[in-house]
């Protein structure tokens, strides 16, 4: 298993970026469930439609932690619209690849971000991301 994680993944696992709590976040995302062994929380701070700060906390495997970490890097400084375009494939690519059975972690990363944006939109506009809902757990190949 370890050998299946490339050095980028290992680096994000060992030195996760933007990990921790956030005081007064503008949006909070929460995704996953304990039965599946992965839970991600993502907090965003938004100013002028731009995500100026982001933090995460993750309960999960190495890939889950690395995926959360890279998502925070990908999203920082992006507008809401740009952030919404981030896909799990981009997460995988930014990590330089994930072992096949760990690809669902990148989906969780995408979903955690969208969940935070959804929360932010609901709080600010009263309406979440149009038509969005998190991927089904079944898809995650547990």
């Amino acid at each position, binding site marked *: 298993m370890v050998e299946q994680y490339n050095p980028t993944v*290992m680096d994000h696992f060992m030195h996760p970026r933007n990990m921790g709590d956030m005081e007064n976040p503008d949006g909070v995302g929460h995704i996953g469930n304990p*039965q599946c062994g992965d839970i991600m929380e993502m907090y965003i701070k938004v100013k002028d439609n731009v995500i100026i700060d982001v933090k995460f906390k993750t*309960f999960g495997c*190495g890939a889950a932690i690395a995926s959360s970490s890279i998502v925070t890097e990908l999203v920082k400084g992006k507008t809401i619209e740009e952030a919404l375009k981030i896909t799990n494939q981009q997460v995988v690519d930014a990590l330089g690849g994930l072992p096949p059975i760990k690809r669902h972690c990148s989906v969780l990363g995408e979903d955690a971000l969208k969940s935070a944006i959804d929360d932010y939109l609901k709080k600010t506009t009263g309406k979440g991301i149009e038509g969005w809902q998190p991927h089904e757990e079944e898809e995650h190949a547990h």
Partner: protein
Amino acid sequence: MPTEAKRKVYFDNMANTPPDHRVIETMLLQTKEAFGNPLNIHDFGEKTAEVIESSRKNVAELIGATPAEIIFTSCGSESNNFAIRGIAKAYEKKGKHIISSAIEHFSVLQVLKALEKEGFKVTYLPVDKNGVINSQAVAKAITPETILVTLTHASNEIGTIEPIAEIGKIVKDKGIIFHVDAVQTAGTIPLNVAEFQVDALTLSANLFYGPTGIAALYLKKGTRIVPFLVGGTQEEGKRAGTQNIPGISGMGKAAELAKQEMNARSEKLIPLRDRLLKGLTEKIDDFFITGHPTNRLPGHASGVVKYIEGESMSMLLNMEGIAVSTGSACVSKALKASHVVLALGVSPEDAHGSLVFSMGKDASVEDVDYVLAKLPPIVKRLREMSPLYPKKKGAK
């Protein structure tokens, strides 16, 4: 990316033990010398037959069987598949009910699942919070249709030693076939098939410092079985295929050594195990032991670190040179919380935080203390990351 940690602590002996150097020497010698087909009529074949039969004798003696009752197979999984399917099929005219438990290895569960599809009924007995199967529950589960009871002697994941002798008596009184998965116990703790009244028993060399790729099924004289692997007449027609000479010679030597050294190994390992369990409990808050606190495999310490997940713990331990298992050794690729830990009544999120430390005969106090020094900061670090770790506690 292998770690550069200077100390290496291999605490994953329930997944596989490193072969003893004396075992490897025997394998080397006999692989060179015994290459003739033992079914054929020449000295080369005789030599091979001698190696096989002397190894069979050692394996038989390890568990109090006769050599003719030992069938060599390729792994514990094959022995389990063979025993359960083969006995079920041989006795299905008598009835189609099988009794097993909730803490069996996948190589037992998957065969049972397949048999259920073929019309068998299986009762999976629960275990108590320490992982103990209740012998009275076995008695109660028996029906006139019951043909087979198949239970593990100890689960690799929790190490609890099950009351097999007690259960054997109950099962025998009813004239039902009793199969025991002794992969974790044969060669590790004393085990006598006559005393335990078992009819079939799975044992595997790689759990007592023999090589991988070789295991055996004990089948009591007179017990019927439908062969699993069919073809030639090897193993008295019970298991086809050219025999594994490196493996069989290694298993024979490992069995001989296990018989001689078993007590000394346990006397050394039990205090180490207890030191580790005590240390983990003291040094890590919200840690609890899984399996029986005392009646467990000599080198086996397992438990749950709440709020964090096993794979990330293993990876960070690996960075320190420490090898452990999380959940089932054989299926950690399945990413599922261990069904064995869940069977103890542990919640799914806690089950994801389970770790198994399994020490081998060469483990030392220093190894234990090294683990006890390295684990707490890892736990602290991962808990800081965990959304499940209660805020009030703060990062500890």
